[in-house]
């Protein structure tokens, strides 16, 4: 089965600073999803990457998928308190019938 490892597990960043979260897969990624979760709430879809070398941006968040399609990174520029939460990467299987998740990264933004 596919395993996703996220690093770091937790991150404390001063407001305004940049940060990066990594997601590494044990197998080739057919679809890599990034989600954000506020504590005790559902997941909010951020973006999805499928092609090797692909990069997508939304507001101040940029996600990349490496050429070998086994690692993805999520980069936040000029962090804000609204960025705080748990970030989860998820991998779709070949037929995209199911999505398995990494262990998550808890992001705290301090003033």
């Amino acid at each position: 089965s596919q395993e996703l490892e996220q690093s770091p597990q937790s991150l404390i960043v001063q407001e305004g600073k940049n940060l990066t979260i990594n997601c590494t897969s044990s197998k080739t990624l057919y679809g890599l999803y990034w989600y954000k979760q506020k504590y005790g709430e559902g997941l909010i879809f951020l973006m999805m990457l499928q092609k090797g070398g692909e990069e997508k941006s939304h507001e101040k968040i940029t996600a990349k998928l490496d050429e070998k399609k086994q690692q993805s990174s999520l980069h936040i520029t000029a962090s804000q308190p609204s960025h705080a939460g748990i970030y989860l990467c998820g991998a779709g299987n070949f037929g995209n019938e199911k999505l398995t998740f990494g262990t998550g990264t808890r992001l705290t933004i301090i003033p």
Partner: protein
Amino acid sequence: SQTIHQWPATLVQPVGSPLSLECTVEGTSNPNLYWYRQAAGRGLQLLFYSVGIGQISSEVPQNLSASRPQDRQFILSSKKLLLSDSGFYLCAWKTGVMSYGYTFGSGTRLTVV
């Protein structure tokens, strides 16, 4: 518009009692449906998924079962709850378009006491 409803939001149940959590989707037909569990301090674990009425795939052997009696209804059940069943349960559905991702409900926090 497409929406997903999950209830209840919070549930406290004694050990050995039954469980029924319901999830319904509106605004779409024949969706793939999913149940996930998030234990304290841990990631999301896929429990069950369904690609159609009466079709259930189990990912993890456990004390839970799932059913899909109608196209847009997905139910998570247990006959006798264990302490280890405590957690945050999330229902999700997926469109046919891969890039749109999976849409999640607001979750049910289950505490077994």
